[in-house]
């Protein structure tokens, strides 16, 4: 993945960089990074909430809890995003 980064950039020409291609690549990289960030934090939070004492397997009730926790975490993420966005909008209007 890291090896592909430099070589994928700017295509096969070598010298000339294609801005359109770079932008596309950057967008993909950003999307991947954000997904990883969300996954990591969500796993951490839902593990804490749903796994009391780690048993021999992930039992049914734990799986249900994790599924619910994931959905609520996404709700929370979206609520926070909206709240932050409206705060920014308000502050911009007051400037």
């Amino acid at each position: 993945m890291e090896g592909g980064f430099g070589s994928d950039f700017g295509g096969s020409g070598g010298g000339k960089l294609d801005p359109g291609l770079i932008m596309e690549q950057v967008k993909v990289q950003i999307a991947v990074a954000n997904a990883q960030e969300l996954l990591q934090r969500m796993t951490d939070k839902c593990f804490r909430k749903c796994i009391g004492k780690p048993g021999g397997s992930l039992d049914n009730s734990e799986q249900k809890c994790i599924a619910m926790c994931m959905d609520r975490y996404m709700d929370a993420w979206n609520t926070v995003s909206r709240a932050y966005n409206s705060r920014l909008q308000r502050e911009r209007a007051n400037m």
Partner: protein
Amino acid sequence: MDSSSSSSATGLGSVDPQLQHFIEVETQKQRFQQLVHQMTELCWEKCMDKPGPKLDSRAEACFVNCVERFIDTSQFILNRLEQTQKSKPVFSESLSD
């Protein structure tokens, strides 16, 4: 690391303005997203008890307040640091030592 030095060899003045604008916008968006990740994690601890079948209105209000107060806190600290720096610059002294 090699690719960055070779691309900068073309000269900073010749950076595609469209690309530069793109980077600025994406950096801004990324800063926003990063703070959303951070605040979601923080407010989750404060506002979430047991995850239920839906986000109830009490929790939702808590999240909104949590975001507002987090930003208030950040601004308060920034302002107060600025004020204290003006009267007695603690930072520069300790940093120059």
